[in-house]
């Protein structure tokens, strides 16, 4: 069930919010709703989620009762990563072994990937390690732990919620009108980003990345890459924003996941702004345990490469993701050396241009179906292997709605939207008169309600699938 679907917005969300707000036992309501939410993507997958819940709770319980044991932590990590390896990577690994062997040495399994498994695997690891480190106390109630582990707003696409982030609110939390307002605002902003921007530019991005060989032009390749760059941020960022908004409506404060990443001045800064819960996870549970910034340059470079190879593979079992991770890892390494010193001295727009170009090229690797296809796209962006007479020119992909979505994306990226406390409470109220604050509120509310209606009509339009072809 996606947040931007009819079933979620039209049925699930109103019912769950109603029951969560007015029924007693709201943790049970939330747990039941979350399990239903997950089962919707495939009831059989629910067993996997239940395994993660029970397993992690048990390991946490054992750590709390039998003392901090390395063996238990190792068991916990293996028990979390094991199913991920099987479901997500076994097929890829077996296929590579077969390719190396030159014949079908191993049968390649074709498992359907359980939704969100990468997220709740990392969540499980963080829980066990945090309990082991004593950062957080193990949750005694399996029901409360299940509620945390399966909480639907963050279940399938993050933010990667660590138990310590919300431990205090699992048993005691308060929702207020202010929190509700903040939650609704974020939900609408996220929904609009996903539906009005990401989905609009997704169409040309998909079409261009799917063009047959020989149909790419220089302009088309660049346009496709830019559309994808916008799509992936507003799709994922929008989804995270919706999740955080839903969290507020339920009384939780989830950590932020994005902070205007395309305004960064370097790849190093980009990773402080992009998918922040994932990068901080890798920092805390991989990079620092590997040694972090300690040791010589070679050691740090190794640590960075390990982290980014893993980060690439976390996104998917394909060489393209590995290449993307390596690309970022190498750039980060370079930025720690001469490139970084040169960049520090460079003019600010040059630094920004470098970041945008580097990220854009990375996204081509990330999006392409295969490395050869990525090579074709990147080549076309350099003017290599392009056609002078494509079936459709770039203008065919750049209709007014797409251009408007790109314009909105630039505006959202460049403009500093009121965020967090400043927005919630009008914290800088001292600088404004009550009338001005009220006017600003009313303008925000009006704009958000318009965005909500426009987004709902777009979601509804997606359900409209006329069968007209037979007529023609």
């Amino acid at each position, binding site marked *: *069930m996606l947040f931007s*679907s*009819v*079933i979620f917005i*039209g*049925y699930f969300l*109103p*019912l769950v919010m109603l029951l969560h707000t007015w029924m007693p036992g709201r943790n049970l309501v939330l747990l039941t709703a979350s399990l239903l939410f997950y089962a*919707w*993507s495939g*009831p059989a997958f629910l067993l996997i989620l239940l395994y993660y819940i029970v397993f992690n709770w048990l390991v946490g319980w054992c750590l709390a009762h039998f003392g901090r044991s390395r063996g238990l932590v190792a068991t916990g990590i293996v028990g979390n990563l094991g199913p991920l390896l099987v479901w997500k990577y076994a097929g890829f690994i077996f296929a590579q072994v077969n390719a190396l062997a030159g014949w079908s040495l191993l049968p390649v399994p074709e498992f359907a990937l359980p939704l969100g498994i990468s997220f709740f695997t990392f969540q499980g690891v963080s829980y066990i390690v945090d309990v082991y480190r004593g950062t957080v106390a193990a949750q005694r109630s399996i029901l409360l732990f299940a509620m945390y582990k399966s909480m639907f707003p963050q279940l399938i696409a993050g933010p990667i919620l660590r138990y310590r982030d919300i431990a205090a609110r699992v048993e005691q939390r308060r929702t*207020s*009108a*202010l*929190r*509700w*307002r*903040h939650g*609704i605002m974020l939900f*609408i902003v996220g929904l609009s980003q996903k539906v009005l921007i990401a989905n609009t530019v997704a*169409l040309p991005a998909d*079409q261009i990345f*799917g063009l047959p060989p020989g149909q790419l032009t220089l302009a088309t390749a660049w346009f496709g890459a830019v559309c994808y760059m916008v799509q992936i941020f507003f799709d994922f960022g929008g989804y995270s924003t919706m999740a955080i908004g839903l969290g507020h409506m339920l009384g939780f404060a989830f950590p932020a996941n994005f902070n205007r990443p395309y305004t960064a001045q370097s790849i190093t800064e980009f990773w402080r702004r992009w998918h922040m819960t994932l990068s901080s996870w890798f920092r805390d549970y991989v990079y620092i345990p590997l040694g972090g910034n300690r040791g010589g340059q070679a050691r740090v470079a190794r640590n960075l490469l390990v982290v980014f190879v893993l980060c690439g593979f976390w996104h998917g079992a394909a060489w393209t993701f590995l290449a993307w991770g390596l690309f970022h890892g190498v750039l980060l390494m370079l930025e720690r050396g001469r490139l970084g010193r040169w960049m520090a001295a460079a003019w600010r727009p040059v630094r920004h241009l470098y970041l945008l170009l580097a990220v854009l090229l990375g996204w081509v690797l990330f999006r392409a179906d295969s490395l050869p296809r990525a090579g074709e796209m990147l080549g076309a962006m350099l003017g290599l292997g392009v056609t002078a*007479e494509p*079936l*459709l*020119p770039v*203008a*065919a992909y750049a*209709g*007014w*709605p797409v251009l408007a979505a790109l314009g909105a994306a630039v505006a959202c990226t460049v403009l500093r939207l009121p965020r967090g*406390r400043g927005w*919630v*409470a*009008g*914290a800088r*109220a001292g600088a404004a008169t*009550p009338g001005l*604050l*009220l006017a600003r*509120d*009313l303008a925000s509310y009006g704009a*958000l*309600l318009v965005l*909500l*209606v*426009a987004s*709902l*009509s777009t979601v*509804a*339009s997606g*359900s*409209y*699938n*006329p069968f*007209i072809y*037979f*007529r*023609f």
Partner: protein
Amino acid sequence: MEKQQGGRARRVAQALFIGLAVLVIGLPFMAQMLGFNRWNPGENRAQAPVPALPATLAELEAWPAQLESALSDRFGLRSDLVGLHAQLLFRLFHSFAKPQVVLGAGDRLFYSWLDDGRPFTAMVRRMCGYGVSAAEQQGLATATATMLRAFQQDGLRLDMLVVPTSPVLYPAALPAWLRQRCTGTTLPTSAVLARLAPEERDRVAFPLDLLRNPALPMPSIALERFHWDGWAASMVAAWWAEDRHGLPRLRDLPTERVFQLSDLSGYFLGLELGSQVLEPRWPVPELARCQGVACFPGLEDVSGVLADVSRYHGPRPGAGRLLILSDSFGAEAAPWFARHYGDVWHFALNNLHELSSAQRERFRQAVLEAYRPDQVLVLVHDGNLFTFPTWLAQALR
């Protein structure tokens, strides 16, 4: 979470905002409960059924997706929201939700079906001929000639009428990026005509000059339509029957102008784009008309699948029998041919592939052997020249 500053007015505004947002989100659900969820027949498909509660594990696996489809077809205010989306796109961007339709100069609509999921490649290639190689042109000519000869072997006279579509008739009205692809190209139909032997070429009619004659009092294809209406169809039918085949006109059809929503309106539900179209004014003395499944006794199952079928019967001494095998351009044209024939049977074959081989054989026997037409007319639009001749030769031979 900090306290809000600014007093009572801001708190009231906040409460109002929360209330309105909750109302907007909850409105479709409430509307459905109250029964405001009319289904739009313009979608031309059956509403997804509400699934029964699952009884087996396999049913349980499939149940969420089935229920989601059912609810997606039934949520309250669905048509209104879809219409609102169409309105927003059209008013703000002169654009449509579905990529198959584009707005050109002078508010002319252009349509192209998706080819491998990609919009407008079908128009650019199949209608305008951009990027069609000489080898492909030769292939089309060979397929057309094969179809013409195939029917000849059965002693049937088969002619073909290829109707030019809007991009070919009005390339100047296309958006600039499409105009570049639709001007200065060799039209596939023209390429086929150039490659056919003279006796075969005489049997393929392509009324391009007739339909794009600037002296015509109105456009051959209305601004808001993909298909022609009675005005162009009657003109072409008369040209084909009288000028090309020397047939006498047996009767005239009284006509009327009526307002019709665009035949593309399924792509923009909620936008009332339409035009005045010319139609025969029924009933017509001494000409019986039948449309739909009941017109061909014994072939009801076939007609049910083909859906777009019609029959005209107006016997006159010496009047011949015409069989029209068409795409969706045939329905508008069929009655006008009844001015020159005593019997006209018309079948649109877009759903031909859905017939079983037994149904196809019965259909072939009924229309070719039992009806035994004096003339078979294959009537398609220019984009279908790439597929129809091959299909038809394979399916009915």
